[in-house]
């Protein structure tokens, strides 16, 4: 068994695709049409193109409990998931320049530094640098 897919629920797949590729810098791996305009849409990190894929999943549009859960996390400021970066402050500076909003500015938490951004598709996403 292998870990290959990590799913992120999004309200609008195309909007999420633009955000995760143009702003965060991920690359498209698989884009396959499904029924009803939905897509099997996965992304990879440019530094690990054969690594785990992020699945931008339109679950909140089709399954109300998912939307309720996602809204509750967003309201509480809890990240849906997180990505590791080499320099949280540098990413914060780069992304705020691109108009990305952060609910938690770069903050040291013991042996890690974190920041939390809004992906504009219903999720808080945490950036993490190991110190």
């Amino acid at each position, binding site marked *: 068994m292998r870990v290959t897919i990590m799913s992120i629920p999004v309200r609008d797949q195309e909007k999420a695709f633009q955000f995760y590729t143009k702003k965060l810098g991920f690359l498209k791996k698989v884009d396959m049409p499904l029924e009803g305009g939905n897509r099997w849409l996965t992304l990879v990190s440019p530094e690990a193109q*054969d690594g785990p894929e992020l699945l931008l999943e339109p679950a909140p549009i089709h399954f109300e409990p998912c939307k309720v859960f996602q809204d509750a996390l967003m*309201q*509480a*400021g*809890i*990240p849906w998931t997180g990505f590791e970066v080499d320099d949280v402050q540098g990413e914060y500076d780069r992304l705020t320049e691109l108009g990305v909003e952060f*609910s*938690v500015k770069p*903050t040291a*938490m*013991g*042996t890690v530094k*974190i920041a*939390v951004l809004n992906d504009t598709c219903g999720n*808080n996403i945490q950036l993490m640098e*190991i*110190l």
Partner: protein
Amino acid sequence: MTFYEQELERIKGIVYSNQGQVDTVIAIRNYIENNYDTELNLQVLSHFRFVSKYHLLRLFKKYYGQTPKQYLVDKRIEKAKEHLRNGMKVTETCFAVGFKSLGSFSTLFKTKTGKSPTEYQKEQLSRSK
């Protein structure tokens, strides 16, 4: 302040209240990051920060969830993958990342990645063509 921010503050106060310990383990990790290709062991690391070997072991595990040895092995394998992708020979890679024996390097590499160094390199180089 969101619920998450409140939780961060609360957890920080409990888990990371001892800044001296945090500074020690961060320095140890940085030392491993910069010296993974040399002969590193608990003795060397404990001399570096003037703490006992067992205290260092406990602290590192407490703050990083791995022993220094486990961390070092992962670092060496990560660097070995980088060298192999760049076309470095397997034997050269083995010594460049601090392993002393080709046999133990190959075994460990296969355990961690599922492929031998040679298989890994072939696969990576064929992908980049």
